[in-house]
């Protein structure tokens, strides 16, 4: 839809449905006069991208439901090309997703409200807290009570769902509507597919990036002249900052913020950031399990070094008080964005939130990079350390996607409606907005890295190049650490969190003992789920 038309109609105080009817009429009139609706869309496309980035505007506070609805409405063009108005009248769909930090489903509701008004479909919502998500999904699968047609799901769960035939394969028109070729390379095959088939409308491209405080580093700054680029340097700086004062808040200065408390399994990604640099060898995609045996690698010398690094910082007293009770959410939103600590690994939404969230005080003093490297890497094949610098950014969680379940496969109208809703949420333009504003999602398309668009939206060019560059560099890194999409992956993470918590609390004699306890627990889980099937799925997920 042309932005001018949108503004004119909303200015005339028309309701949304009539406005959309008006849009359709204008399209039809255009067709009669030689101007097709498609060309009108195409003509307005770049304007839509620019205009949605003004909602509510960078620095204008956190977006509200009205903003999400407005964005959803302005991005309806591709839906209107494939779906007639009112085509899904009477169709009811159930959508299961998250309610983290009032994002995810809260945004989807707003984005899909105009879609519902246009198509006539009705969506019922199942909202879940992040920590409840895994259990709810697993119980639904195991008890045969999948009660949702559309699901927001992380790629790691594909083993549990696609692997059991619970998902509907994506129709070709959806691939065209969402412009699937625009996805960054690592989200294409094999990570973007399961057994060669597409199921996921990608709405997020996860990787952990390194965020740091620019006022801590530089000539004369308390953290030293250079930003640490290896984990060895990160630890050295963190120790050196003990006893110094934070230049922004005046409170005690701190270095790297490791979350020391579990987070329903998600805490495992954070120790993995350190470990990836030590153990993800460029010669092999495997870094968590040995692919032929599923023997855990978590107690090899590389992983042990990562755990030891954290224990060293605990021993030195380098963390803020009560860090043992800080989960990843705390480190990002209560600590780093609120001005405590100078270095953090997190998903990219910390970058967009730094500038646009009401709770952030570090928007002007934050810089980004890729996961720090290690000065040496452990080669698990030769069982020896190699004294070479190793970078391995972690594609933590791979990204959220919208999936359609097999519940709708037998009903063509419902199936089309479900895929249309999914495609709307994964649309090319809408995703630009979710990349730029607090949404829980980060850039994941090549088109998201057009820095001019961000600059025009009000972002500082240097900031956005830095922030987006760290994402692009991570996605395109040849030695990216990609986790296995195997069933029960969060069981492995959850039990590791428990053992790490004991290790960090000093209940194990050493990092090695902690790692051995994790390995033993992982072996038990593999045996319980079934070693042979896990090996097969692990290899498949790594494309081996």
């Amino acid at each position: 839809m042309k932005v001018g038309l949108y503004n004119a109609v909303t200015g005339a105080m028309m309701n949304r449905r009539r406005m959309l009817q008006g849009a359709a009429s204008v399209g039809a009139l255009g067709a009669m006069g030689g101007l097709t609706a498609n060309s009108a869309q195409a003509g307005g496309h770049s304007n839509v991208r620019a205009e949605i980035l003004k909602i509510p505007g960078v620095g204008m506070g956190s977006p509200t439901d009205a903003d999400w609805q407005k964005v959803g409405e302005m991005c309806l063009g591709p839906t209107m090309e494939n779906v007639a108005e009112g085509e899904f009248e009477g169709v009811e769909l159930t959508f299961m997703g998250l309610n983290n930090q009032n994002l995810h489903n809260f945004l989807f509701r707003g984005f899909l409200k105009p879609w519902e008004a246009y198509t006539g479909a009705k969506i019922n919502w199942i909202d879940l807290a992040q920590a409840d998500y895994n259990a709810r999904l697993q119980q639904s699968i195991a008890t045969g009570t999948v009660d949702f047609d559309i699901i927001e799901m992380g790629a790691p769960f594909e083993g549990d769902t696609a692997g059991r035939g619970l998902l509907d394969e994506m129709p070709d028109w959806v691939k065209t509507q969402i412009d699937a070729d625009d996805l960054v390379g690592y989200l294409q095959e094999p990570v973007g597919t399961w057994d060669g088939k597409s199921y996921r409308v990608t709405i997020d491209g996860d990787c952990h990036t390194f965020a740091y405080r620019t006022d801590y580093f530089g000539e004369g700054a308390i953290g030293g002249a250079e930003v640490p680029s290896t984990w060895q340097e990160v630890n050295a700086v963190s120790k050196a900052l003990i006893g110094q004062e934070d230049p922004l808040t005046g409170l005690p200065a701190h270095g790297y913020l490791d979350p020391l408390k579990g987070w329903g399994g998600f805490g495992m990604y954070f120790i993995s950031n350190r470990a990836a640099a030590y153990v993800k060898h460029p010669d092999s995609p495997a870094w968590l399990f040995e692919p032929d045996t599923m023997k855990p690698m978590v107690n090899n010398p590389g992983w042990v070094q990562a755990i030891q690094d954290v224990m060293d910082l605990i021993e030195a007293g380098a963390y803020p008080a009560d860090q043992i009770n800080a989960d990843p959410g705390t480190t990002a939103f209560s600590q780093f964005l609120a001005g405590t600590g100078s270095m953090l690994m997190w998903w990219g939404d910390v970058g967009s939130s730094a500038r646009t969230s009401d709770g952030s005080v570090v928007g002007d003093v934050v810089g980004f990079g890729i996961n720090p490297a290690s000065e040496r890497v452990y080669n698990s094949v030769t069982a020896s350390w190699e004294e070479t610098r190793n970078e391995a950014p972690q594609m933590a969680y791979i990204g959220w996607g919208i999936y359609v379940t097999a519940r709708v496969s037998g009903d063509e109208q419902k199936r089309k409606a479900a895929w249309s809703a999914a495609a709307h949420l994964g649309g090319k333009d809408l995703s630009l907005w979710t990349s730029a504003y607090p949404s829980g999602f980060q850039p994941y398309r090549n088109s998201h890295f057009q820095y001019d668009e961000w600059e025009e939206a009000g972002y500082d060019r240097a900031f956005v190049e830095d922030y987006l560059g760290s994402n692009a560099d991570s996605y395109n890194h040849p030695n990216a650490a990609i986790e296995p999409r195997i069933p029960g992956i969060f069981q492995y993470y959850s039990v590791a969190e428990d053992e790490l918590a004991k290790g960090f609390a000093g209940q194990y004699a050493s990092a090695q003992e902690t790692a051995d306890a994790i390995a033993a627990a992982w072996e038990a889980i593999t045996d319980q789920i079934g070693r042979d099937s896990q090996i097969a799925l692990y290899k498949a997920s790594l494309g081996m």
Partner: protein
Amino acid sequence: MSGQGDLLHVVTADNITPARLRLSKAVVWGAAAILALVALLQALNANGQIDLGFTNWRPTLYAFILWSVALCWAQVLGKGEYGKRSLFVLPAALFVVSMVVFPLIFGLGIAFSDWNLASPTGRKFNGLDNIRQMWGDPFFWNALKNMVWYVLAILPEYAIAFGLALLLNAQIRARKFFRVAFLMPLMLSPVAVSWMIGKSMLEVRFGPISRLAREVGIDNPAFFSSPEIARFMIMAMDAWTYIPFMMIMILAGLQAIPKELTEAAKVDGAGSWRGFWEVTFPLMLPVSITAILIRIIFKLKLADIIINVTSGGPGGATDSVTSFIFREYRDRSNVGYGTLLAMVYLVIIVIAMTILMKLADRWMRPKF
């Protein structure tokens, strides 16, 4: 009307004929046969041995309801007025059986199974393996040890509750206001307490309690970093919520003590300390024991504050059995083992509470 039988308690002595008795038995056994047949067919259908098109277990439920109605009817048919009397209890008993006993039996089946929701092979009976796993599980024993500490914390809670109840029973100013004010924590959900106190007021950087601690010279106040302090803070938050419960029970007991007794003690020369120990406290013993037993039951369920504030940390120092089971079941989808832990915990609770109630009964028995 029969001139024999229990004429004292029976209003209408029915003349139950042998035919009516036979009908009563036929009704019960006929309904039972239908129930058994439907359940058997459904079981075979569920196992895939036959295909009757059942999509859920509702037919068995209907057969059970039919049998329950038949059982109630048969009581009247076969026993007359005695049967009518049993109808006052029987429906409730059947409801309890269906809602508690059946799930317990199914739960036992799951408890002795290897059932990980992520496993493609589903549930498998594994005998005593889960018990062996529990025996060697340091997380479970650690949580059980923590529970001992949490339960022991009830003694100081009781002392505080008693003190507050005495205060509120005395002639103090604004007594009604304080009674309501002291009750307010009990009205709060433990989840709200976790967030308001554990995650907000005790937040290290911005929390008002942390700020106050810094004002009084504590540089780095930390409330959940050492095992002992973290455990104490969990106990304190839980106590803050539930002390009012014990307080209100004790207060009710205090108000029920006849004034003549305390006045007589005063006349006999007992001071307030002696009057308390020799008169008030012994009279309050039944109420106190009841309050403590109920509080123990509440305490054994402690989980919400722990899950929200510490997730059992640091290093399991605050873990309770319930919060550990919650993690095992929810985060790891380990349904079989999680259920076994819950069953074992239930057995421990039943045994411990039975012993406690026996002891309490012995303490409260009159000695003179």
